[in-house]
């Protein structure tokens, strides 16, 4: 069974289809009761602005259904060309086409009605070219930690220089550094370098920050400073920046590149003395709130990112995660479990408020954490995730995980992340469908409606979400609830299809406003027929949704036993959808649509998402954020890494994620999403060490060595954040990166039969085989 499962994750070329929507169940259970029997929640994973070569862009405004539906005209609408009427598939309301659709006919349909165009994008021109301002430039506010060692600062500076060079000329740039205090650079003041310094120990309300910076509109205090030399005097009149003088701090990249580079040249590590036995004092929290406050002076709607480069834990002020005392360790999962992390909840609350502020302003927080120790990603997670920010966790600013990821943000073209701003997502669906909420990088706008379910998952209680930052790979998981009442079921038109429409309004990388409309349809499963359900099951999506759901529960529910919950779910699922005879484990079989799920579950149970104790809370938070925002395909890799096998006599082939795949004369390439491991078998390593690859007669060997490298680079190039590349040899210490992911089919307990060149894993973990045996036994029991 394992054999056939191998590599499925990476198989399909575009499993998401043109809509970027994947559902756990493509045939929906009809009732709530049935849905609950399905075990795996009814959920859809959507990629709101996933690029697609076939995407149709329409240069006009969409046609909408009458209130309260507001659904946009789509291919599923029933159109009466003669009467110029269309019927909304979601609410069945009849709408007249407006006059400018007068020419519509069966042969002359607007793009949004083409059947294949279930996803279209509207890019209407501005109503009035003359009056409307050009799109606001993106804003990048760099927030740099200076409480780092000299060497790290050098790395950081070089990354910054490169980033500055890549910025579009019109992008507004600001600079803020922090250590014990926060330094905000007034780039617009030319006579001297002018820096506003804030104390790191005190939380400063936004109004006060604006007031102190002289940006407050109501305030007289600094207001007049605008006139001071060095400030361009015009900007405040152009309407982007109600308090104009914000340009003192945010300058077009073209204008301040020199100044920024000079500042970077002179930037020093934090000079405050650090007592022996203490951590350096670092006020990440205040720095971020000052940054947020500053951006608060920008007009809402301006796409702005706070790009935080953090090199250590916040040790003072709001957002503090650990005291400065070195004898006081940074919290670990155990502390969190026992509620023994004294700063945790306060910090989370602080970042939660910060997130609210940023969401109100429509601004993004990106976090680049580079430190050997934790920096507080777990606490900051809420702010990053709510605003749709990016997060990268690395060991050092010199590490490629940081360097290359950081560069990617600013790159254009193929590599571009397609960073977009100010997204809002609205979901419309057929009646009987309720929305429980979304797991992912967004914030509920609390826009309640009839479509909201009673139970909430993630960001719920709304039909509309804010995504301050989103990019081409952003992925959200929507959880649905079925609320078919008996009445509606009977009286309702037996429409076998259900419709869901996703409306995503966003500001593209170039500042243009877009509305993407994705309308999908699915079938209601006949209530008596499990077969239909089985046929519509998407086990990859199900695995990912379960992983996301479990992660959420682990965070939200105290004392939640994830392993047990997953096991029970799996058992119940198998007993509902498996074929077996009671009390006969051997008789157990699963439909191919379910067949990999147990393996996914097996790996999920062992993954960093569930087995958090192997990781720090920061790492866990990081992994989960990535899990929540990546596509299904990528997320599956996080749960169950893919393994490729390179050997002399065959092309690279997917291999079983099993210790048995290790062999002395093979090279293995493991893609665990966060890390990519190239593993040389013992023999290969010896040959390589002896330099055979450099000898012409061993060209083949050189190619063999090169192949996995090449493939690894391909993976790395396409991924954000850049994974960590580990190159190791069998029995080397780094080999643990591979061994940890493999199914321990051979352990020290079972190793008597080990073949030469193979390997064993020192663990007491059960192997997949044993897991499956137990599963079968338990399933057939009940």
């Amino acid at each position, binding site marked *: 069974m394992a054999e056939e499962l191998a590599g499925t994750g990476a198989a399909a070329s575009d499993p998401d289809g043109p809509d970027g929507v994947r559902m756990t169940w493509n045939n929906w259970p009809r009732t709530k009761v049935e849905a609950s029997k399905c075990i795996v929640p009814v959920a859809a994973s959507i990629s709101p602005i996933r690029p697609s070569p076939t995407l149709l862009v329409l240069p006009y405004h969409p046609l909408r259904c009458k209130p309260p539906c507001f659904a946009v005209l789509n291919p599923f609408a029933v159109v009466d060309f003669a009467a110029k009427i269309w019927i909304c598939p979601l609410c069945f309301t009849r709408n007249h086409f407006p006059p400018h659709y007068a020419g519509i006919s069966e042969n002359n349909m607007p793009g949004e009605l083409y059947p294949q165009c279930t996803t279209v994008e509207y890019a209407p021109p501005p109503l009035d070219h003359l009056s409307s301002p050009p799109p606001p430039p993106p804003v990048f506010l760099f927030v740099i930690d200076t409480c780092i060692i000299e060497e790290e600062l050098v790395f950081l500076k070089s990354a910054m220089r490169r980033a500055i060079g890549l910025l579009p000329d019109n992008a507004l740039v600001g600079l803020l550094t922090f250590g*014990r*205090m926060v*330094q905000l650079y*007034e780039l617009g*003041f030319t*006579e*001297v*370098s*002018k*820096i*506003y*310094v*804030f*104390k790191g120990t*005190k939380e*400063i309300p936004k109004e*006060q920050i604006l007031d*102190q*910076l002289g940006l407050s509109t109501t305030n007289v*205090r*600094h207001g*007049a*400073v605008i*006139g*001071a*030399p060095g400030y361009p005097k015009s900007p405040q009149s152009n309407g982007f920046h109600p308090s104009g003088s914000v340009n003192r701090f945010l300058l077009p990249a073209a204008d301040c590149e020199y100044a920024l580079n*000079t500042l970077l*040249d*002179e930037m020093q590590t934090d*000079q*405050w*003395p650090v007592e022996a036995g203490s951590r350096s004092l670092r006020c990440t929290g205040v720095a971020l709130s000052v940054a947020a406050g500053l951006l608060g002076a920008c007009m809402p709607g301006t796409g702005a990112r706070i790009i935080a480069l953090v090199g250590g834990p916040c040790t003072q002020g709001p957002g503090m995660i650990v005291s400065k005392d070195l004898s006081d360790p940074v919290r670990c999962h155990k502390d969190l479990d026992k509620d023994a992390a004294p700063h945790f909840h306060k910090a989370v609350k602080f970042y939660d408020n910060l997130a609210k502020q940023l969401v109100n302003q429509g601004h993004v927080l990106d976090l680049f954490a580079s430190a050997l120790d934790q920096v507080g990603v777990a606490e900051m997670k809420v702010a990053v995730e709510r605003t749709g920010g990016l997060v990268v966790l690395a060991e050092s600013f010199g590490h490629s995980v940081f360097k290359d990821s950081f560069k990617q943000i600013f790159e254009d073209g193929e590599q571009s992340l397609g960073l977009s701003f100010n997204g809002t997502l609205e979901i419309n669906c057929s009646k009987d469908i309720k929305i429980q909420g979304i797991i992912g990088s967004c914030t509920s706008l609390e826009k309640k409606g009839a479509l909201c379910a009673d139970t909430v998952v993630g960001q719920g209680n709304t039909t509309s979400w804010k995504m301050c930052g989103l990019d081409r790979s952003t992925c959200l998981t929507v959880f649905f609830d079925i609320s078919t009442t008996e009445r509606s079921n009977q009286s309702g038109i037996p429409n076998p299809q259900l419709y869901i429409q996703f409306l995503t309004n966003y500001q593209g990388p170039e500042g243009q406003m877009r509305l993407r409309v994705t309308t999908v349809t699915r079938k209601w499963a006949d209530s008596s027929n499990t077969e239909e359900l089985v046929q519509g099951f998407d086990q990859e999506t199900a695995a990912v949704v379960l992983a996301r759901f479990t992660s959420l529960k682990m965070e939200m529910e105290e004392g939640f036993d994830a392993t047990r919950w997953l096991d029970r779910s799996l058992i119940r699922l198998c007993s509902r959808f498996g074929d077996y005879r009671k009390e006969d484990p051997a008789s157990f079989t699963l439909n191919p649509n379910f067949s990999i799920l147990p393996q996914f579950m097996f790996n999920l149970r062992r993954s960093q998402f569930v087995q958090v104790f192997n990781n720090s809370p920061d790492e866990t938070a990081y992994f989960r954020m990535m899990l929540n925002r990546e596509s299904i395909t990528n997320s599956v890799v996080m749960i169950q890494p893919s393994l490729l096998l390179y050997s002399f006599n065959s092309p690279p082939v997917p291999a079983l994620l099993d210790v048995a795949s290790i062999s002395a004369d093979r090279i293995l390439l493991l893609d665990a999403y966060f890390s990519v491991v190239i593993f040389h078998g013992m023999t290969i390593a010896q040959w390589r060490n002896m330099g055979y690859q450099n000898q012409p007669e061993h060209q083949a060997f050189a190619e063999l060595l090169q192949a996995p490298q090449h493939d690894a680079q391909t993976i790395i190039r396409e991924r954000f954040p850049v994974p960590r590349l580990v190159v190791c040899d069998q029995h080397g210490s780094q080999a643990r990166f591979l061994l940890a992911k493999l199914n321990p089919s051979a352990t020290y307990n079972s190793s008597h039969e080990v073949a030469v060149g193979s390997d064993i894993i020192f663990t007491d973990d059960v192997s997949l085989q044993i897991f499956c045996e137990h599963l079968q036994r338990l399933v057939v029991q009940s």
Partner: protein
Amino acid sequence: MESASPFASGPPRQRPSMVPNPTGVVQTPLVGRSMAPSSSVPLTSPFGSALPGFSRPAATPFASRPPPPGAIPQGPIAGNGPRIPGFTAPRTLPPPSVQPAPPSAASSSIRQPTPYASATQDSGLQSYPGSPPSGASVATLPMPFVGPPASQQFGRPPTSQPLFSGPPRSQPPFAGAQYLQRPMAGSTNSQLPLAGLPTSQSPFLGPPTSQPPFTGPPTSQPPRPNTPQPPFAGLPTAQQFGGPSTQTLTGPPISQFVGPPTSQPYAGRSSSPSQMATPSSQPFSMPPTVGTSFGSPVWPSQPGQMVPSLPGNVQAPPRMFGMPPGMPGQPIPPVLPAMGHSALAGPQVSTQSKIDPNQIPRPLPNSSITIFETRQGNQANVPPSATSIFVVKDNGNCSPRLMRCTLNQIPCTGDLLSTSSMPFALMVQPLALPHPSDDPIPVVDFGESGPVRCSRCKSYINAFMRFIDHGRTFVCNLCGFTNETPRDYLCNLGPDGRRRDADERLELCKGTVEFVATREYMVRDPMPAVFFFLIDVSLNAIQTGATAAACSAISQSLADLPDGPRTMVGIATFDCSIHFYNLRRASQQPLMLIVPDIHDVYTPLHTDVVVPLTECRQSVEQLLESIPSLFENNKVSDSAFGAAIKAGFLALKPTGGKLLVFQSVLPSVGIGSLSSREAEGRTNVSAGDKEAHKLLQPADKTLKTMAIEFAEYQVCVDIFITAQTFVDIASISVVPGTTGGQVYYYYPFSALSDPGKLYNDLRWNLSRPQGFEAVMRVRCSQGLQVQEYAGSFCKRIPTDIDLPAIDCEKTIMVTFKHDDKFQENSECAFQCALLYTTVYGERRIRVINLSLPCTSMLTNLFRTADLDTQFACILKQAASSIPMNSLSQVREQITNLCINILHAYRKFCATVSSSGQLILPEALKLLPLYTLALVKSIGLRNDGRFDDRSYWASHVMSLSISLAVPLVYPRMISIHDLTAKENDGSLSSSNIPLSSEHINDDGIYLLENGEDCLIYVGNMVNPDTLQKLFGVTSVDGLPTQLVLQQFDNDFSEKLSVVMNEIRQQRCSYLRLRLCKKGDPSGMHFMSYMVEDKTAGGLSYVEFLVHVHRQIQTKMA
């Protein structure tokens, strides 16, 4: 004469000094009484007693005079109060002016010393060494005197002395020599035209060179009669004195009164005598003599003016006296009697119910130099007047500059003290500038063991510790405890009971020594000299030019900061936020670090905010240059003063140091922000007067709390207020007042005329001798205990005061109370110990010892009372009470104190039965005048601005004695006749009494109080004079903001010389204001005429009558 004259008392005192002065003379008469009491003392004449020199001469006061020449200096010392040994100047007046006066004077009923008077002018002049008199011409006069005495050395250098000139300016204040020169002078050069001059000439420095005969001889004579020989005697010159003396007797009084007095004390007298003649008052004579003694006297110059004035004055007085009539009403009886008595002026009134205003006591300027030996014959000598010029020989007691007592004999019991009503306090000015010829203060290093101290009271070893038992033990002179002598400090005793090494060991023979402090005296390494400048860059400061002035002043002053790698500087600016600057940067541009949170301030950097001057001078200068332009368009009008000083403090916290703040507006935001309470107070009239004094209290405790914290970390704050409006000095001054700093006030700030003073003030502030992180304690003999300290400091524990910084000008008043009795012949000791760090980072303990005899005789108390010190004490007490009480109450308290003192004297010391006389103790004869002046001073006037009053109060609290008197009773001299005065002696020493009678419409007058300098221009001034002095041809053409330029003419040069002389003497650049008759500024000038009758106050004569009446009432 003595006996005869109603003034009877007159004869007694010989105070040389007094005599000379015109005013002084007058006083003497009053003093008269004192004589009697004093008589009990060896010396018959009270004065005599007081004046050592004189005593001998006992018989005729005048006789005694002779000695003066040499003695003169001493004379003054003797306790006559009059300050002055040195006033040669006085003489000058007499000649010309006098004469005219006489007539009038004569007319006036006053009996005076006519005798001399007649002789007076002419005789007077001649009488003197002859030369002088004849020398009517100013110039000549001086010469003669010079000749005689070696004294010249001290001579007032004024004119000539090249010697001094050079050095002064250049040298840093610290230099021992310069004592006189203020950095100002030097500085001046650079900026101000005047300045330049001073340097060159610094007269003071010169002293040595100077001619005054007195100096030489004087040294020897101690004040006491006891003293073996009158120092004066020694000098042949004596004659001169003699001459004068005689005159003095007769004439003095008269002359003095004469309006002109200022300048011509002597002359005046002579003349006056003629007028006054009648006044048999020999007493006066005495004084005159004194004057004479000074010899140099003849300064014709003034006369010119004087003369005219005199007549007028003379007459005037009578009228003024209108009082008398009034008096008669009730007091008449008394008055009359008084007349009968010998009582001088006061009394006189009685006779005719008139007091001759020319005879009433006034301070006599004295510019001669005396030599003061602190002890002689194992007895403490009574120090010379604090305002006189003297050279100190430390014989066991400290220099009176460093510490002096209101009483030079200590009352044995508290009852005796309270009977006298006199204040009992020490004025300690521990780092006072020495005279260049003073004995230097020795530095004694005891090595690792540190200085020897009493093991019980911890007082330091001093000359009065008594070694017994072959030197094995010693008895503490303060607590009486018997200590074991440390082994390495053992020394055998000689036959006289002293240690054989007593003369070699400076701590055993000098009154003041500095011990090198050991580790034990340090809680950390001695701090470096750190200076942090905080500059206001708010709208107002920028627009008025205050910012630019401050930056320029700082930049120029950098050169005057102590050298060395340990000197650190920092700069910050502020408006509604605080801007620090990173001064150590790779790039050329300064880095501005803004602290916007003014409610919770902090320093933005750990390092580089305060940097070593040597490394970063260039960037500092560059920054200072660019600050005005950086903020030139600043529109922020708010000022976060409190937050700024807090931030500055935080920057200094690790080291301590001086924070120099330039502030232009009312602190309106942030920590310690203040409201415009003055305006609020005005609008709220009902509360107005009753609550007015509350506006002199700090608005709240915020700044006080901050200041205490500053002091704890050795941060001293000086504030330079360059304001145009109310800034609430009452609140702000708490900070400097608690941290050992001071307030400088430039109101209204003028970018034209004030930068010079600002720079000079700053320069002096930075370069004057000073110390850091100081702790001071005063110990006293058992029987007394310290009651209170007053001044600029922070007090955390009852016994010590903390001084984050202490400089040569800061004076601390220490009051005492009895807790036991003293034996009649014992001595009471005081020891002030100041532990401080020098600007070069050495830790030192300056120990200042003063041992004074105890007495159970009230007469002794009065005889040795120290008027200057007592007045300084009264002044400070008044200043500290104005925020607590209404002005009228304070004025009444002061007046009552004066009355009580005089009453005590009258009741217990004046033997004469004539109850009708107003009798003044010789030593305190100026007390009424000073009291009157104090009542009318800025701080106690009703019409003052609150800021002026607060500034006055804060200024006074740490004011030195020598500046206390002029502050209240300023010096006025005429300028229009400068060229006529000739180069003799000190140009500024011929004072005019502060009465409008002496102001003529065709005159130009200069009035200075050590702080401000007003130049008053009458409306009939000779255009030529105007042209020469100010470069304009008419009064109308005079600018309102005066910058004194030096023009190329004798007149202008002389004025510069005078200005610089004054500046040096006052250690202050003086704020120059031009006052024109008929203009508000003219009214302002007139408000300094304290002897005038004003809306709110009595005239001098009226006041005397008032005092007399009150005393009579009490007597009855």
